[in-house]
């Protein structure tokens, strides 16, 4: 195995390969701490050819590898298989070009999401996908997970904004997929790769669409007596043909956590739910849309509707939403941020069901969610040191997924399957459906070395398909 490490060091230099257990420890998990994997090494490429060299080294030794960005993922997608190699792309952080006239940028995968929008801002442009982790997460990670965010409702998720990819395939070959125009003559391979959770190769350059900043933005906060009436308002807004930039609901339990934290946004503690509506677009159209939303919110039972008067107040409204995860940190040592989607008309009843599941298992469960997309995020605060509580957390999670599927939904809207939900894929898909997915994977990675054990329920590890890989997990560290 020292041959492998020598090859990794030859690829990027010894100073950019970590191998000591205390260095590797932080790479054992991503943002979802429930799942861990112990890598043999972590390598930090800066250039595409270095990624190719790393991939070829792993392949030559029959060792699985996983690409990783900032490690903010929430489904265990960036974990190494035990004994595998993490190819850490965060140092590939250059914006290679930004063409304001054609509204296109080409970036390395380690560019931080918010940094791209910041670079585009002087040109009146921005990068639309805005995951909650956008100050830390990388474009490469967003591509792997097809990340969304609060503004996905209007602007779409990552796949709607990625035009072309430079991809290092699992055999180390380099391919260019798509074009800066967004059109390819043949198959939509860019569409197949975005959201493939790092299992089809490693994106080393990403061409993205930049969007014009909206002329105007209005943010509205509506207070409801309960989640049901807030959901009713969401349905009415969508049914009225309005397409807000965001429609977010924060429930009573989350309000309590937020208001007790440094993120306090001045929300009434007796509110059953808060709905944040953001409208953007042509300045002349906003007053009419704002009035309509106010009307619909009131009809749905809002006790109070506030409109942000300035940027500071807008930020305060959003604190109620964006500070929620941070505020949960006060409640317990661990937080399980769940992710599922249901038809929008089923939101209210599913949220009630989710809360009942949490209560039945004696758990602290609260909800913040992208209501406009039907994208739920039940958050369970817990202490993993309590094995019984951990068992109940996992049991509740499984029941929540089953409930969402029963309602016509799916088991993830933006976090991905990763290691977390691969065994729940059967809730949605039959054997033939999953086999079609395996065919796609095998066309890119016939040896199964690229991020094995993720996304599909029956992992085909290198060790299973590549005799040379057998036993790699028994080789001790140097």
């Amino acid at each position, binding site marked *: 195995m020292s041959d492998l490490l020598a090859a990794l060091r030859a690829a990027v230099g010894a100073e950019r390969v970590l191998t000591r257990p205390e260095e590797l420890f932080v790479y054992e998990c991503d943002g979802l701490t429930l799942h861990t994997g112990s890598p043999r090494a972590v390598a930090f490429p800066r250039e595409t050819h270095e990624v190719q060299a790393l991939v070829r080294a792993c392949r030559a030794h029959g060792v699985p590898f996983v690409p990783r960005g900032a490690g903010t993922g929430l489904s265990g997608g960036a974990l190494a298989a035990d004994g595998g190699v993490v190819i850490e792309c965060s140092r590939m952080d250059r914006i290679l070009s930004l063409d304001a006239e054609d509204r296109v940028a080409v970036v390395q995968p380690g560019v931080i999401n918010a940094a791209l929008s910041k670079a585009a801002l002087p040109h009146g442009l921005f990068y639309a996908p805005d995951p909650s982790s956008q100050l830390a997460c990388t474009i490469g990670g967003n591509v792997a997970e097809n990340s969304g965010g609060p503004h996905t409702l209007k602007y*779409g998720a990552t*796949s709607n904004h990625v035009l072309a990819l430079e991809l290092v395939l699992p055999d180390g070959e380099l391919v*260019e997929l798509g074009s800066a125009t967004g059109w390819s003559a043949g198959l939509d391979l860019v569409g*197949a790769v975005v959201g493939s959770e790092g299992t089809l190769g490693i994106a080393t350059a990403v061409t993205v669409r930049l969007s014009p900043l909206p002329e105007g933005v209005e943010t509205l906060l509506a207070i409801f007596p309960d989640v049901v009436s807030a959901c009713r308002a969401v349905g009415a807004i969508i049914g009225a043909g309005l397409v807000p930039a965001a429609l977010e609901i924060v429930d009573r339990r989350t309000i309590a956590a937020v208001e007790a934290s440094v993120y306090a946004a001045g929300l009434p503690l007796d509110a059953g739910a808060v709905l944040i509506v953001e409208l953007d677009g042509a300045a002349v159209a906003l007053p009419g849309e704002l009035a309509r939303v106010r009307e619909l919110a009131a009809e749905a039972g809002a006790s109070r509707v506030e409109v942000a008067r300035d940027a500071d107040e807008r930020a305060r409204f959003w604190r109620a939403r964006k500070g929620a995860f941070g505020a949960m940190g006060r409640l317990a040592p661990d937080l399980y941020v769940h992710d599922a989607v249901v038809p929008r008309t089923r939101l209210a009843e599913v949220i009630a069901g989710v809360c009942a599941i949490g209560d039945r298992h004696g758990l602290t469960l609260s909800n913040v969610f992208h209501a406009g*997309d*039907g994208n739920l995020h039940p958050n369970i605060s817990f202490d993993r040191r309590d094995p019984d509580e951990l068992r109940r957390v996992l049991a509740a999670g499984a029941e929540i997924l089953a409930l969402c599927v029963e309602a016509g939904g799916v088991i993830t809207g933006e976090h991905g399957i990763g290691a977390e939900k691969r065994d729940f894929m059967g809730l949605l898909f039959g054997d033939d459906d999953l086999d079609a997915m395996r065919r796609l994977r095998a066309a890119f990675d016939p040896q199964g070395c690229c991020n094995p054990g993720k996304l599909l329920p029956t992992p085909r590890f290198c060790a299973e398909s590549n005799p040379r890989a057998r036993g790699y997990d028994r080789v001790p560290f140097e």
Partner: protein
Amino acid sequence: MSAGAAALGALAEVGGPDVDLVRHAPVSIDGMQVGVTLRPRDGEALARAIRGLGERGLAAVPIGGGRHLELGNRPRRVDALLCTSRLARIEFEPAEGVCSAGAGARLGALRERVGREGWELPLDAPDDASVGGAIAAAAVGPRTQGFGPPRDVVLGLEVVLGSGERTRCGGRVVKNVTGYDLPKLYTGSQGALAVIESAWLRLRPRPACARALDLPARPRGDAIARAVAASRLPSARACALVGEAGGPLAGCVELAGAEASVLRDAAWLAREHGAKESGADALDALRAAQHATPAPHGMRFRIPVLPTAIEATLAALPPEARVLVYPGLRLCYANFALASPDDSGAERAFASAAAAARASAGSFRCESAPPAAKRGRDVFGPAAAGEIALARALKARFDPRGVLSPGRFAGDVG
């Protein structure tokens, strides 16, 4: 028994009683004559038909409304058309803004159905195109700028793989990252990997207000600059330039959305660019022009183009080539009228398209050509070896027996 009779006999057994076999006057698929159509009654029959074809070493070209049959390379073999017209069920959930439609449902019927409840079907293909065909061809039209491409409209699909399994992918909800995004792989794959049985589609609210305006013809450079600006108006959902590549070019813009926004943008177009209000059918006429087969012996190319490269792209085309440019969509269509369908004319047309593509993003595809012009050529133009290798690996895994349109797709030229 002749080979044709033997194939017909084998076809009669394909799929059993739930697959109608219709004999008809031969239809030309790029010069290959096909006189038999298989019409499965439901998804299970479609799967049986595909398995039956594979077991007998036969091949079929999937067909919905027959609107996009000119796309693709000349097939290596066609024993029958595989028609989805009987899979025409429509399910509509107005409160959700989504609908499900069988592959054979016509866009016109679906538009009418969802329009009654204030929704709009964001697929810009002709009314008589089928849902399955529009998705399989990833059909675009002028309004695709506002609608988003078909890949963004398709939420989930039920498909029958070339190997015969009925499968589902995606879902019916508007946000979903559960597993691989196979709907995107199938959208635009022209039935080379699987035949679409039904689709879940995302609808858009019908805009409160819409206006079409004509931009007067102007010299090429000026017309392009004005059209790019028009295509970027907040309410612009379609923008096109038409004329000959050498110019002048006339424009057409459709504005849609909140009335205040549309009226403001329309006033700006009138004031700054001399735009005049046009009829509501202007966009339909544009779409028809885009799909029209250039006659006689004409060829049509699609050349993706960045806004800043439109001028250079048009300059690289013969000045008399008819062009249709969608600046906001980043697409250019170029029609060449050939004197005859001989090879030299086709060769020159391909060379011109390649030169124009080099001035832009590099890729092009020929969307319509006389059969002789396609012979021995990959109409999808030059593709990188790596991309072709992946396409072939996918074809081998999804359609190992080559049942579905063998030879038609990029990199699979016969």
